[in-house]
């Protein structure tokens, strides 16, 4: 999902302008900064690259674009810039590189274009433009070259007439914004992809979403399909079939936050609820249930898996807990020793044969600096490396030998939710695949696991259907002094993840333990003010875990349990039912813990999507 913002100063001539509602009392803002802020407002759409073109009467076009954070985009100081256009790109096909970032230009660099959508006939158009020089692998780049062509064939053509001509050639859906050197206008066209025009007192805007410029103006006009609009110092003119039309002006009354999140208060809650859908994407086309095998993209040299002695998983935070879950599956299903390392601590230790070691990096963003460092150390040692990530074209995919994508879709909330579930599901499929290759699991055994995975989206939906009960529990126990999460076996990583989720968004003291460890120390912390949350799923030794929970209850603590359908523990204060899906039940139980963390934090009014001191993708070591 890409984002577009365009900005034109009214009255012209000045390189800076006051924003209509600047909270700091009308500080002069540069054109580049206004566009950059617009891009930041569009961050929620997900992005992996960004770019800006600034246009000045004397300076011409100044383009800056790169893959990576919008924040890191270094906006040049162009003193005479009066207008410009920005773009955030989220690659779905093809890598996020500096070259593929928008804006794109024609051969001579006179025309710059940003584009949202797909040009379906770009290959045919590209063939037609054989004598043009293309610098990216995007479909979008044909547009500036077509404009260049249109300007060349007709000496009377200007940016507007050129775009009207080019528009007739494009098939697919698009929103386009174009600028040209020596032209004081932005020309935009809408076909299928939304574009909205903002009419401020001292500036005009265009964007793929009003949130991009809502701080500057609330008077907007929604363009219709086929509309072409011209933004200049005099305001906005909209054309339909070449004739001016009046599309009216509407006043936006809602708040930016709600518009972005589809009515949810927080991305985190939205993303928790997206899990059935994202898990379906994760497993789509990968489960060959009848054959008792999986279809993965990842590949290994012949004979490598048969001889592999150890799988080392390197990851941080939530991804590390997904790794801990997976390590147990690798040992159980693939019959290979598996260890989990915290990326920043990872060294390729002595006593291992590099050619018989597989190092698996688990990172949502694919940019986690600590994990990239670990992978580089593994590569240097000569080990075989693979990545499990959510982000196409991310750095980690270039560092490893092979990659499997978790396909969870963009995750905006800093607290990882849906990506944890998809990471575990992906790693479980990998464990089955390696197990089948090594002959450590039968087709029938694999089939059981695959049927569990197949049932995962439906099971998670059942848990989401119980959100009201979780909210009640969060309200009743949310004001406690501390929270302890316990489990055994596959329940341990989930207990750790449950505690991490709560502490990172509610700022409450929360700790996860292997249940057996409770009595070796932490029990001293248990009081009537410290509820215990337990993962009591079949296969994760629930009876023994329940014994430890009872020890805590004896000291006055309340107990909340996530319990499999075939178990019953009547002494729990709250019991949440976990549907029967075998080895992935703890992942389903985790959804209860996610909702518990969310509602505890929400009741306390925390900044759930951007907890203090934390960033989504940690790109520093």
């Amino acid at each position: 999902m890409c984002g577009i913002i365009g900005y034109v100063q009214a009255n012209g001539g000045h390189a800076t302008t006051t924003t209509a509602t600047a909270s700091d009392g009308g500080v002069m803002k540069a054109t580049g900064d206004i566009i950059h802020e617009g891009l930041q407002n569009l961050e929620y759409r997900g992005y992996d690259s960004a770019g800006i073109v600034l246009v000045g009467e004397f300076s011409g076009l100044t383009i800056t674009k790169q893959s990576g954070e919008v924040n890191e985009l270094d906006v040049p100081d162009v003193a005479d810039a009066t207008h410009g256009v920005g773009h955030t790109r989220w690659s779905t096909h093809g890598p996020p590189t500096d070259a593929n970032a928008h804006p794109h230009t024609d051969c001579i660099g006179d025309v710059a274009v940003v584009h949202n959508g797909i040009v379906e006939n770009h290959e045919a158009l590209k063939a037609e433009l054989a004598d043009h020089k293309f610098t990216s692998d995007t479909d979008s780049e044909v547009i500036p070259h077509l404009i260049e062509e249109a300007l060349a064939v007709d000496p009377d053509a200007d940016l507007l007439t050129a775009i009207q001509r080019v528009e007739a050639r494009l098939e697919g859906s698009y929103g386009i914004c174009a600028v040209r050197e020596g032209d004081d206008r932005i020309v935009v066209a809408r076909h299928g992809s939304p574009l909205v025009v903002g009419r401020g007192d001292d500036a005009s805007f265009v964007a793929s979403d009003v949130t991009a410029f809502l701080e500057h103006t609330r008077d907007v006009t929604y363009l219709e399909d086929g509309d072409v609009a011209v933004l200049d110092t005099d305001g906005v003119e909209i054309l339909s079939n070449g004739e001016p039309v009046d599309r009216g002006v509407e006043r936006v009354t809602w708040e930016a936050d709600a518009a972005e999140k589809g009515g949810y208060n927080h991305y985190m809650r939205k993303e928790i609820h997206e899990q059935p859908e994202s898990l379906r994407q994760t497993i789509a086309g990968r489960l060959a249930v009848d054959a008792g095998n999986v279809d993965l993209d990842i590949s290994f040299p012949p004979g490598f898996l048969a001889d592999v002695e150890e799988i080392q998983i390197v990851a941080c935070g939530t991804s590390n807990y997904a790794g801990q879950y997976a390590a147990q599956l690798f040992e159980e299903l693939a019959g290979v020793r598996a260890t989990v390392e915290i990326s920043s601590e990872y060294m390729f230790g002595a006593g291992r044969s590099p050619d018989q070691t597989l190092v698996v990096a688990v990172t949502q963003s694919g940019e986690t600096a600590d994990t990239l460092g670990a992978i580089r150390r593994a590569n240097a040692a000569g080990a075989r490396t693979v990545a499990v990530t959510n982000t196409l074209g991310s750095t980690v995919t270039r560092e490893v030998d092979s990659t499997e994508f978790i396909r969870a879709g963009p995750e905006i909330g800093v607290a990882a939710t849906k990506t944890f579930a998809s990471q575990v599901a992906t790693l479980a499929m990998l464990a089955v695949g390696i197990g089948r290759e090594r002959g450590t699991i039968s087709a029938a055994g694999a089939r059981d696991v695959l049927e569990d995975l197949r049932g995962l989206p439906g099971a998670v939906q059942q848990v989401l259907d119980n959100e009201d009960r979780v909210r009640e529990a969060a309200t009743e126990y949310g004001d406690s002094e501390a929270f302890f999460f316990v489990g055994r076996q596959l329940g341990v990583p989930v207990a750790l993840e449950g505690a991490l989720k709560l502490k990172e968004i509610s700022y409450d003291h929360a700790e996860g333990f292997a249940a057996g460890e409770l009595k070796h120390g932490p029990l001293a912390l248990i009081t009537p003010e410290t509820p215990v949350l337990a993962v009591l799923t079949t296969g994760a030794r629930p009876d023994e875990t329940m014994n430890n929970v009872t020890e805590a209850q004896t000291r006055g603590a309340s107990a909340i349990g996530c319990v499999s359908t075939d178990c019953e523990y009547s002494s729990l204060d709250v019991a949440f039912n976990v549907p029967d899906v075998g080895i992935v039940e703890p992942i389903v139980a985790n959804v209860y813990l996610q909702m518990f963390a969310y509602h505890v934090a929400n009741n306390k009014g925390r900044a759930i999507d951007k907890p203090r001191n934390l960033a989504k993708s940690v790109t520093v070591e």
Partner: protein
Amino acid sequence: MSEELVTAVILAAGEGRRLEPLTNRRPKPMIPVANRPLLEYVVEAVAEAGLDHITLVVGYHQERIRNHFGDGDDWGVTIEYVEQATQLGTGHAVLQAEPVIDGPFIVLNGDRVVEPALVKRVAEATREGEHPTMAITTAETPREYGVVGFDGEHVTEIVEKPDWPVETNRINAGVYGFSPAIFEAIRNTNTNGELALTAALDELTDKTDGVNGITYTGRWLDVSNLWDLLTVNAGLIDTEATVVNESRVDSASVSIAADVVMADSVRVGPSVTIGGNTAVGQNVTVEANAVVENTIVFPDAVIGAGAVVRDAVVANNARIGSNVTIEGTPSTIVIEDTVHHDIELGGVVGDNADIGPGATLTTGAIVGDDVETDAGVIIDSRVAAGATVRRG
């Protein structure tokens, strides 16, 4: 004067109890037909009519709606949500939109599929006129709807579900155009504690130029009862829309009719037959030798080997055991004390229900969500949610 923007208010807060068990976990507008929720067809009709601002009135299980539609970007529209916390009638639902409406607007039902052309006509009439506009269509069973008196230009009366003989087959199509003045009219019409939109309109019909009527003869798909889903599903399946790209079709022995809609992540075993008017949702598994025909299969469901499923609705994550038969002859079904005759419905299986191997569902069996049955049982009536059906 410039063209005023018309907002579309879509009512999607209701429970739809007559469609239990399918509405136990989702609002009625989110029931999938031809693999997409009913509400999506309504949103699309609005978008195609050129209106790009939608206010969704949500309530019951609203997270399902918010999740699916988000901010409307995927449909090229802007969607805003308002909440109707308690269900106090359609008039009350419309009142919830009052704070965000400041010009002419149209109102549609989130579970009734109409053509973009109608939306456009009502929107245009609303943009120009000051009086309320109401779309009128015809039905074979007018007494199940709001029966409308119409003089060719204005609506003369609206009678909700009359239990006496009626002279006309004209009914309220459930698409309206209003100015903000309607809010006051609704507030002034309190009937039986519920604020019914039609009651407010009926009062306005007495006034000069009271309520304009727009007659409509195009596609009008209404889901009143469970079996209507199959009719609507068949109506919406585009014969061109068979999608089998990524699905796991295991052998050439699989037969899939042209009028089938399949999600891209469906797994299909060998020798499976998927007959006409069938929709198969994401992550569904149809095992070897199964036959599925004129059926809606929701996401995540599993149809076991050798099962025969005809004229049925299989909800999310339900498990149909091997060799289960779901098939019926036209029969009599009772829904909320109303007796319906000659209904062709093999059976309905609720969310997460588990039907044991070899079981038979027949003559309109309606199995609640989370029901578990033993192998070989025969079910021919309603089974309450969460029940266990034993053999014996």
